[in-house]
């Protein structure tokens, strides 16, 4: 008897096909399964044979699916990590970025993008270190050295310019500005001219730094003090317009500076006072000159003494002395006098020359005249009627 595996109907042994359903009857079945009981056992055994590959397949598939998912997950997280790290790097957190990139690289060592990011970050870290050393050079006031270092970093940055490197540019510019400001600060000490200082002020005007603001303040202070000093010197030299020019020069850079404005006002007042004084002095001199001239012309000669006396021969001598009261030389003084008799009748009017011809101020001169005609007159007197002179 052969039992069909399909429908379970019995067939004659030796039949190759089931008479009921037409299924092929297996030899083994024919051989080994003689009864209903053995047939189920046989079936179980047969299934057992295939359970191993099936299980392996299932487990393997599961493992592979899990593994695939995991790998994709890792990809995601590495990508995310990289993106975040790059973002950080671009924000300037290079060290953090480096750490994260390195961590990500452990997971995906062959990922070139990661490697490139990492090496870029390393480059930038190196440049940043260089910039830090520039900064410390600046702080030590070794500006030439700093400038040299900075030029080197700058060249490197230009040669390797990329998105990350340019994040260092603000820092580079800032350091450059600081060097400029530092240099100016050093130079300002030496500068003594307003226009040179103003040049520095121009250079500083483009820099938006705290140091620059301080340097500007220092320079304006210096401009004010130089202008003030120059103006004071010029006041002392009585060169008022030059003093004003000095103040104006300062004011053009240090606009509306209170002290300079006051100084300018003061200079103007002093200038006016000076001119006023000078005018007064000259007016006084002119007045004095006029007075003196009047005096020299009208009252320059004082007749100190004049007398007439007779000698034993009856000759009458008239002599006298004059003194110059002029303020300049007077010359050719002529004294005109009347000779009077005892009744005060004019006998004669005559003129005598004073000698010497030139009389300096306060010098005295004399005159003398002898008359032979007055023997009979008893009492003769003389009276000055006029004095004439030249003012030299």
């Amino acid at each position, binding site marked *: 008897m052969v039992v069909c595996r399909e429908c379970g109907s019995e067939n004659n042994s030796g039949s190759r096909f089931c008479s009921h359903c037409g299924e092929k009857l297996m030899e083994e079945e024919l051989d080994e399964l003689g009864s209903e009981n053995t047939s189920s056992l046989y079936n179980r055994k047969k299934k057992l044979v295939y359970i191993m*590959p099936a299980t*392996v397949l299932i487990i393997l598939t599961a493992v592979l699916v899990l593994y695939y998912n995991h790998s994709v997950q890792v990809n995601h997280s590495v990508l995310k990590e990289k993106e975040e790290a790059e973002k950080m790097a671009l924000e300037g957190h290079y060290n953090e970025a480096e750490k994260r990139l390195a961590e990500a690289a452990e997971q995906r060592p062959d990922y070139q993008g990661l490697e*490139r990011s990492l090496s870029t970050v390393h480059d930038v870290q190196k440049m940043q270190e260089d910039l830090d050393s520039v900064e410390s050079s600046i702080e030590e006031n070794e500006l030439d050295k700093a400038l040299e270092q900075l030029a080197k970093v700058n060249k490197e940055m230009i040669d390797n310019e990329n998105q990350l490197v340019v994040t260092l540019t603000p820092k580079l510019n800032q350091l450059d500005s600081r060097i400029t400001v530092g240099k100016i600060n050093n130079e300002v000490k030496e500068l003594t001219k307003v226009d040179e200082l103003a040049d520095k002020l121009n250079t500083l005007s483009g820099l938006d730094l705290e140091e620059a603001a301080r340097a500007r303040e220092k320079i304006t202070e210096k401009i004010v003090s130089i202008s003030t000093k120059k103006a004071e010197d010029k006041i002392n030299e009585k060169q008022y317009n030059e003093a004003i020019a000095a103040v104006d020069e300062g*004011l053009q850079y240090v606009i509306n500076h209170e002290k300079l404005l006051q100084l300018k006002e003061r200079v103007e007042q002093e200038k006016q006072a000076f001119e006023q004084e000078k005018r007064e002095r000259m007016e006084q001199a002119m007045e004095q000159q006029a007075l003196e001239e009047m005096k020299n012309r009208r009252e320059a000669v004082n007749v100190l003494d004049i007398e007439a006396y007779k000698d034993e021969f009856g000759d009458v001598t008239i002599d006298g002395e004059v003194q110059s009261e002029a303020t300049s*030389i007077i010359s050719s003084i002529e004294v005109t006098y009347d000779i009077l008799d005892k009744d005060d009748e004019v006998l004669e009017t005559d003129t005598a020359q004073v000698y010497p011809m030139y*009389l*300096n101020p306060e010098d005295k001169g004399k005159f003398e005249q002898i008359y032979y005609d007055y023997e009979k007159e008893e009492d003769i007197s003389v009276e000055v009627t006029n004095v004439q002179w030249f*003012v030299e």
Partner: protein
Amino acid sequence: MKRAWLTSAILTVLVLAVGVLAFYFIQQKVPSELEASSILDKPVPEEDEGNVTKNTQEIIYESQKSVVQIELDNGTIGSGFLYNDQGDVITNAHVVANTEDVKVINVDSKEMEGQVIGASRSSDVALVRVPDLAEAEHDYLPVTEDEDTELLTEVLALGSPLGLQNTVTRGEISGLDRNFELDPFTYENVFQISAPISPGNSGGPLINGETGEVIGINSAKLGDESIGFSIPVLDVMPMVQQWSKSPMKDLPEYPELTAGSEALNEQTDADQATYIIQYFYDSVNQGDFVTAYSLLSSSWQEEKSFEEFREGYSNTLSVSVDNIVADPDGEEVKVSCVITSEETAEGEVEIKKYNLDYTLGYENDQMMILSGEGEEVD
């Protein structure tokens, strides 16, 4: 039975093999799905500078709207140009020297009031604020930011030469870094331009013929030759911006630029000193002691009153200068002279010779005799 087991084992091995292959495949394939790019080392995108070159006609048309003529009550005419939206007009200091209020005329011949709010004593630059130009939201001229101007750059000079408004002359930069002084201004690193300009151009803009940006302020003309100069605008911008921000309360004075002061300066100091000493003795000789005294410096006058001064000549009949030599010494001039004087003593006239040394210098802008001493020559 045996055959079944064999088949099963082979199947298992196959499955395992496929599985391992698949594992390796995943291991290779999934990581390589990561793109190899890095944002960080991407090159920086080139910035598009957008330097559109305008044609000359456009530049002229647009610029002229911002160029004004500046007139002073005394008849001085100059030019200027609007540079910001506050109605601030840049011009030359010598155009608006010693004035506060000026008349500004724009391209449409509209007259406006302007006030000088800043002027430099050292560089020939001033700033005039014209409120009407601010309100009208006028176009203003762009000022260059390029520090390097090259020789043979094509330029346009705009302005009102001789009062002829809206004149444009074309030329090129024919020289750089020219330095000279024209009292009281110092012209430093100025451009020399081949475009002919005349006095009315002073203060007008020099415009780059390609970009339309202002690069200079046309200025002083040296001599009669047709050489124009232009002050690089960048050199003075910081100062100008300061004035714009805080207008000057008190403008600088330019006594050098007031009418008539020029003629005096033609003479050298030595000539003037010689003249003054001669004039001094001429005055003494004529007895005009006030004039002679007025030639002395105020500090000398303060020491020596007019009376004392006069007394010194009370025995002098006449003086004449025989010989006079002037030597400039810094800002001062040393003058040595020999004079012959007729003096009276004891009524006698004596003739004496004196050797005198005078120092002359400026006091309140006038040359004065600061000090002097002398001795008789035997």
